[in-house]
């Protein structure tokens, strides 16, 4: 099957070989980075260098990375555009919140259930929707993103969802009397989930399934001819993608101790998509950059705009999102393949010849 793929253009060819390179193992510095991240609560937390609020922000960044990774599997590796992944984020968050609030379930035990629920919803939604191609699929998923908050407000679900009020849950304490604050503990939980999910994603991408996904993206006709069941592969990809985003949603609910329909408006879907594109579509490392972008650039667009206005002494009042727009345009012009793609091509230009 690998040979089918290399029949593509030169760029595809190079990208594929780069991916096969990556398969040979995770470089040592990534593991070092993860170990450092895991030790942060001890280093920063104990010395008081990193406050609980920063741990909340780091956790959020990781949560968004998981969501961006999920969308990336679908959009980047399988070539399907979704404008509705905020919906799965919401489903994951609500499944977790309802299980904790109503059934008093242990919070970690709700994660697999939320993931499974999202896989099922994603698969079932993917099945009929995948008859739609390109723009039409984008619109169908967009409709889903708009519909889900309304569903959550629906009168007959209110005993479970508490309607517009939302659900309050309690932030869990660290187990075994560990000397960590709840924010630090949750940061570790989120980090562990992310590491597992990234390894799984890497393995999926380099497996038979992953090659089928990419073949469908690059050459749908050829993929069909090769005997790939495209409908099945596409809907399973959709399901897996929803599962990732659902996990992100579930973790988000636990971190914030609160869910409400207004937390998951369609802007969230757009934010995840922008994160995936900016980070670098069809790269795993791009998901981390995408998560960073969603958490820090987007959330602080307003503050950054204000700051710049003050620093430069601009005579006019800028709209809150001006800086965000400028950054987005600049990035798209200078790094059309996303930040990860941009750095990869830069490295190819400057690296010493073998």
């Amino acid at each position: 099957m690998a040979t089918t793929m290399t029949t593509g253009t030169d760029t595809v060819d190079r990208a594929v070989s780069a991916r096969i390179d990556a398969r040979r193992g995770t470089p040592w510095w990534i593991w070092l980075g993860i170990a450092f991240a895991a030790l942060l609560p001890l280093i920063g937390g104990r010395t008081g260098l990193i406050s609980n609020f920063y741990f909340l922000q780091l956790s959020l960044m990781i949560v968004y990375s998981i969501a961006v990774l999920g969308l990336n599997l679908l959009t980047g590796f399988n070539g399907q555009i979704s404008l509705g992944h905020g919906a799965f984020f919401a489903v994951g968050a609500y499944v977790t919140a309802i299980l904790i609030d109503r059934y008093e379930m242990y919070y970690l035990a709700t994660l697999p259930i939320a993931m499974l629920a999202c896989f099922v919803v994603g698969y079932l939604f993917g099945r009929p929707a995948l008859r739609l191609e390109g723009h039409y699929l984008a619109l169908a998923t967009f409709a889903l993103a708009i519909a889900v908050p309304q569903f959550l407000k629906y009168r007959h679900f209110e005993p479970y969802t508490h309607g517009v009020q939302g659900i309050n849950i309690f932030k869990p304490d660290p187990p075994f009397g560990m000397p960590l604050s709840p924010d630090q503990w949750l940061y570790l939980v989120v980090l562990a989930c992310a590491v597992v999910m990234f390894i799984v994603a890497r393995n999926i991408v380099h497996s038979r399934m992953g090659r089928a996904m990419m073949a469908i993206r690059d050459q749908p006709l050829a993929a069909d001819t090769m005997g790939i069941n495209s409908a099945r592969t596409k809907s399973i990809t959709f399901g897996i993608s929803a599962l990732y985003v659902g996990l992100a949603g579930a973790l988000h609910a636990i971190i914030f101790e609160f869910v409400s329909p207004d937390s998951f408006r369609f802007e969230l879907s757009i934010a995840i998509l922008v994160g995936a594109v900016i980070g670098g579509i069809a790269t795993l490392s791009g998901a981390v950059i995408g998560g960073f972008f969603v958490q820090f650039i987007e959330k602080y667009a307003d503050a950054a705009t204000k700051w710049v206005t003050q620093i430069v002494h601009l005579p006019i009042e800028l709209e809150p999102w001006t800086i965000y727009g400028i950054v987005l345009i600049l990035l798209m012009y200078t790094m059309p393949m996303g930040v990860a793609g941009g750095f990869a091509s830069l490295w190819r230009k400057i690296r010493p010849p073998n």
Partner: protein
Amino acid sequence: MTKRTRRDVLVGGSAIAAAQVIGLPAIAQGKKYDDGASDGTIKIGHTNPYSGNASAYGNIGRTIEAVFKMVNDAGGINGRKIEFITYDDGYSPPKTVEMVRKLVEQDKVLFLFNTLGTPPNTAIHRYMNQKKVPQLFVATGASKWGQPKEFPWTMGWQPDYVTEGAIYAKHVLATIKEPKIGILMQNDDYGKDYYNGFIQGLGDKKGLVAQLATYEVTDPTVDSQMIQLKNTGANVFFNITTPKFAAQAIKKAFEIEWKPAHYLNNVSSSFGSVFKPAGIPASQGVMLALYRKDANDAQFASSPDVVAFKAFMAKYMPNADIKDDTHNYGYSVTHTLIETLKMCGDNLTRENVMKQAASLKGYEAPLLLPGIKISTSATDFYPLQSVQMARVKGESFEMFGNILSNESA
């Protein structure tokens, strides 16, 4: 859960202990401070949707900022300058949580003031009360902000929807013979608050409600609901709608020639976004409860607070549209806070800020209608509870009757 409570008590206890240790020399001079307050400044936190769908409310934040600038230019409050930190939350509850945690844990503000919107405030309600940081004069009319027992660190400001709904009901019972009532309601928390207040106000006469029609905020129009209501033959119409739908309902009633006694909720008391789009002729006679002056209304042009407000707008917000009622609101609510801080004197602890906020006695904030006063107590966390009935006449409001109150606390 028990474990958590114990830890919080411990953390809270040690925080108080620490504050006392640090505060010791200060007590000698009669000064007491918590995080965010000092000899020179008072730090106040705020969130507001400067971007997104609800960004029209962003003007409230800008007005508050401008009022504090005016206060600082005049030397501050009891010699302390106000440092006002405001963040954009886009009306999105998770973003509010994040920004509020930043305000409390990073910026270390003394308290939060006028955080905007029912969903955002709901999201931080418990956090603020756990942290024991005041969530003062929130910008929402939901009735849940006045529960001093369960949530001693949270207080609303404007007349709550339940109170207002009950006042309309009492007015109907007092003035209309054989009422038959039709209600149009937005199907969410806000709508239900009004509806419940109205039913409470009717007491044992709730059988007078002939029909309750609801709409979703996502519906394109309320035309079919209006026709339905007309067909019940109701002679009283209680219109619980946000501006866009209020304009539609007024217009439709006019078109289908349904002429009930029309009560409209205060949420939609705007000429700019309701009565003008609905048509001035169609709006004549619509009744509603007001608590603030329309600064552009000729009848108040010479009252000192309106003159001061206009001078403030001209100097500190020269580019703003003075017809926009949000400036009005921001100006009035900020003065309530300034009064509270003046009362705090040199004791700027969180506890004292809450205590003083709950000790306002008949304070007449600027731009409140004549006779409407702000009163609070340790058991009454509803600052404004009186309203003045008014009806649309020409292109302004005509007040009638006495000040009406309802004790919902």
